């Protein structure tokens, strides 16, 4: 069984602060995705990273895939209340199967 551990589980910060969420595993993944989920809705894809060491930026969000393709991080700069939600990482194997982490619940207070 391939497990993905996310940390922290809960994060509450003030608007304007920076934060980093981590996703770690002992397994190697062919690719890794980050999703964001709001209450009452399904997760929505933010990014897919494929290459070890890859860094992708989406406005204030920076995603990094570890060199060994076992871990990833999501960094948010100057967080805003609209960033509030559940952040999920999902690792994909070559067999076409995904494993989701338990999620990080982020609350950004105005």
């Amino acid at each position, binding site marked *: 069984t391939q497990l993905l551990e996310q940390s922290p589980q809960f994060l509450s910060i003030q608007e304007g602060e920076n934060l980093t969420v981590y996703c770690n595993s002992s397994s190697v993944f062919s690719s890794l*995705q980050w999703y964001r989920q709001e209450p009452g809705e399904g997760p929505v894809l933010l990014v897919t990273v494929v290459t070890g060491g890859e860094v992708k930026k989406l406005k204030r969000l920076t995603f990094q895939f570890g060199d060994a393709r076992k871990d990833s991080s999501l960094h948010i700069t100057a967080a805003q209340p609209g960033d509030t939600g559940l952040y*999920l990482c999902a690792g994909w194997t070559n067999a076409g199967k995904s*494993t989701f982490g338990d999620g990080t619940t982020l609350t950004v207070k105005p």
Partner: protein
Amino acid sequence: GAGVSQSPSNKVTEKGKDVELRCDPISGHTALYWYRQSLGQGLEFLIYFQGNSAPDKSGLPSDRFSAERTGGSVSTLTIQRTQQEDSAVYLCASSLGGGGYEQYFGPGTRLTVT
């Protein structure tokens, strides 16, 4: 275009009853996934359909759970003899293919077993 739809949005059932949950994927998506999610938690993989291949049922928690996908489109997840521990949100997702394609999720069905 239309996204993934699921019905019903909410289902309350008595322990021991059977329930059917429906998922309408995005047209043309060959892969379809079912997941289960407890409040504020991650997604637990249940079953995966890819094209005409035999489904990957490795995530089904017991033989009370089954799913089918008719004509490569609509899917139904059936839970027989429901138990209180089955209470959760059941999410369906579809994608263009398996293995790393973006999954498009439906809004989920919230199942409550009393």
